[in-house]
């Protein structure tokens, strides 16, 4: 009986210490800005917005039907979008994927100038001046990138600039899986 109590006295703080250390260590590894999207597995919310380069053209979720789509939220005021842009230009050479841009709370003129200077990876660009569609998508920090399947369902969301490492690790396996479906 006495031995048991002594053992507990020694073991309990030790176990507690390791438990707390484990959770604190786990907490250090987490990026509080990487929140899971609430919309994974759901259809892209409804919208009806103009196209940046063809202003008379109205865009609706119809554009996602039948394509694997990368929806990239960007703006000229967003410095990280500029860093990300060359990566998008390279990735856009993959013709199996439809690249759609969402120009988020931006100046249309500035956006066009930016694309002229830096290249345009997008097949179509949705203009969201007011940021209302972005709110429906749960966007809180540009750049963000959504992977949308052939049925218009959101499969993955990445927050922050895309890199080739993230692409190879997170997007590429999902895309090969989608191509098989």
């Amino acid at each position, binding site marked *: 009986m006495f031995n048991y109590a002594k053992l507990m006295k020694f073991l309990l703080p030790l176990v507690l210490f390791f438990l707390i250390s484990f959770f604190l260590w786990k907490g250090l590894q987490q990026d509080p800005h990487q929140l899971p999207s609430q919309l994974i597995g759901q259809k892209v919310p409804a919208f009806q917005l103009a196209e940046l380069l063809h202003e008379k053209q109205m865009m609706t979720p119809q554009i996602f039907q039948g394509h694997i789509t990368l929806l990239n939220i960007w703006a000229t005021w967003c410095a990280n979008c500029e860093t990300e842009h060359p990566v998008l230009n390279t990735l856009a050479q993959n013709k199996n994927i439809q690249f759609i841009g969402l120009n988020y709370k931006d100046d249309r003129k500035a956006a066009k100038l930016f694309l002229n200077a830096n290249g345009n990876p997008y097949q179509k660009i949705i203009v969201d001046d007011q*940021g209302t569609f972005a709110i429906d998508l749960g966007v*809180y*920090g540009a750049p963000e990138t959504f992977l949308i399947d052939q049925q218009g369902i959101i499969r993955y969301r990445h927050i922050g600039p895309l890199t080739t490492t993230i692409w190879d690790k997170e997007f590429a396996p999902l895309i090969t899986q989608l191509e098989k479906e």
Partner: protein
Amino acid sequence: MKFRLNLVILSLCFWCIFANAQDIYNFANNEQQKTFNYLTENLRCLVCQNQNLADSNASLAKDLRRQIYQQILQGQSTAEIQHYLVSRYGDFILFKPPLNITTLVLWFAPFALLLFGLGILLLIIKKHRHINSAKMTLS
């Protein structure tokens, strides 16, 4: 003269009370104003995550305040507006997390720890009583 100058300086100090990040919104009644204040003070700004929507100057916080304002005018309830935001941004937007399976530990761990501590305290007290009573009988 000096007194007056002090008064001016003093009054300037209180200006900051009226300064906050909010835009001017007009409400039909006090109830709506209260709902707006409650919601913006209890929802997290997702850009600067330790600020609430009322205090944040981030452009997303402004948009969300406008969205909340419009929904209040449309007659949506507090719960409906909260649901609208949670379905887009997740529970993380709430400063007071809801009670569900994933937050069970979060809600009850403090009480469990409290009970644990009380248990240890009781054990120690019991032991000391034992020692003390042993000493008493010795003396």
